[in-house]
């Protein structure tokens, strides 16, 4: 059973982060995966295609416009605005004995392609925090849901990410 100090964060908004999707960033991302898909690399091919432009690999949502210096995790879901919400949740978890965190996995649903030049607004909430017993001891699963809207106010994608605290 997780204490109230932890579960009180359920439902809290982590805020909104505005990201820009740039061609160079798309190429660096695709290069890191070693993915030669011409949609990410070949402008002529991409422009002639049904997408009409270079698109991002599904799972890439650009970089925050207000990119904070020195942060070790720069996914939109790791930057909360105000920062206190995620920080305070982590402190509450640490106080209850959960000081390490690993990425547990993610679910995506895609509605529109993400194009080079798009401005995405990522809005996240702490959807749930669930206590579990594992082989190595107690764990807390923190579920963050994010909605990504583009500059045309279309919903581009949603994600549901699990962070496992132990």
């Amino acid at each position, binding site marked *: 059973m997780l204490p109230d100090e932890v579960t009180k964060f359920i439902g809290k908004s982590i805020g909104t982060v505005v990201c820009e999707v740039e061609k160079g*960033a798309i190429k*660096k*991302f695709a*290069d*890191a*995966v*070693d*993915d030669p*898909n*011409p*949609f990410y690399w070949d402008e002529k091919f991409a422009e002639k*295609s*049904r997408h009409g432009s270079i698109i991002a*690999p*599904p*799972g890439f949502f650009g*970089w925050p416009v207000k990119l904070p210096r020195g*942060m*070790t*995790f*720069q*996914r939109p879901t790791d930057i909360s605005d105000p920062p206190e919400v995620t920080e305070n949740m982590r402190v509450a978890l640490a106080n209850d004995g959960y000081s*390490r965190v*690993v*990425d*547990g*996995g*993610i*679910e*995506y*649903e*895609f509605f529109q392609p993400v194009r080079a030049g798009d401005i995405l607004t990522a809005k996240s909430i702490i959807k749930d925090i669930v206590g579990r017993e594992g082989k190595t001891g107690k764990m807390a699963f923190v579920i963050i849901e994010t909605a990504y809207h583009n500059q045309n106010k279309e919903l581009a994608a949603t994600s549901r990410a*699990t962070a496992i605290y132990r």
Partner: protein
Amino acid sequence: MAKQIFWEDVNVNDEVTPLPKIATTTMLVKWAGASGDFNPLHYDAAFAALQGVGSPIVHGALKRQWLVQLMTDWMGEQGTLKKFSCSYRAMDWPRKMATTATPEDGETWHCKGKVTKKYDEGGQHYVDCDIWIENGKGEVTTPGTATVILPGRG
């Protein structure tokens, strides 16, 4: 890219074209920069040892992107990735580099998938798949699912 696959040509239990991948220490550095995940668990030997994982481990999200590529390669230019999920169930360790360009010999990971369902919805052709990554020993480290929309021949 491979020849376009069409919905009519896909059957339940069909294999998604497997995608081999090799994680190297260099790839992990590139991924840290490209994704913004600078957790030293993935590049700092002393830190990783202190965390109890032996040596730096592959980022879960990098494995996620391999699986995304498994599906975007298979679905072709006309396909659309609609849904995707994966869990990072076991750790993977990258090959070290033998030269600036070439990794040492070591394991190759295999991204695989299998069609579980095909159906029409809202005027589009859907295919659901189970997807996973097998490490060099054939163990599944990253199971998941994916849904793609495929073009029809007609």
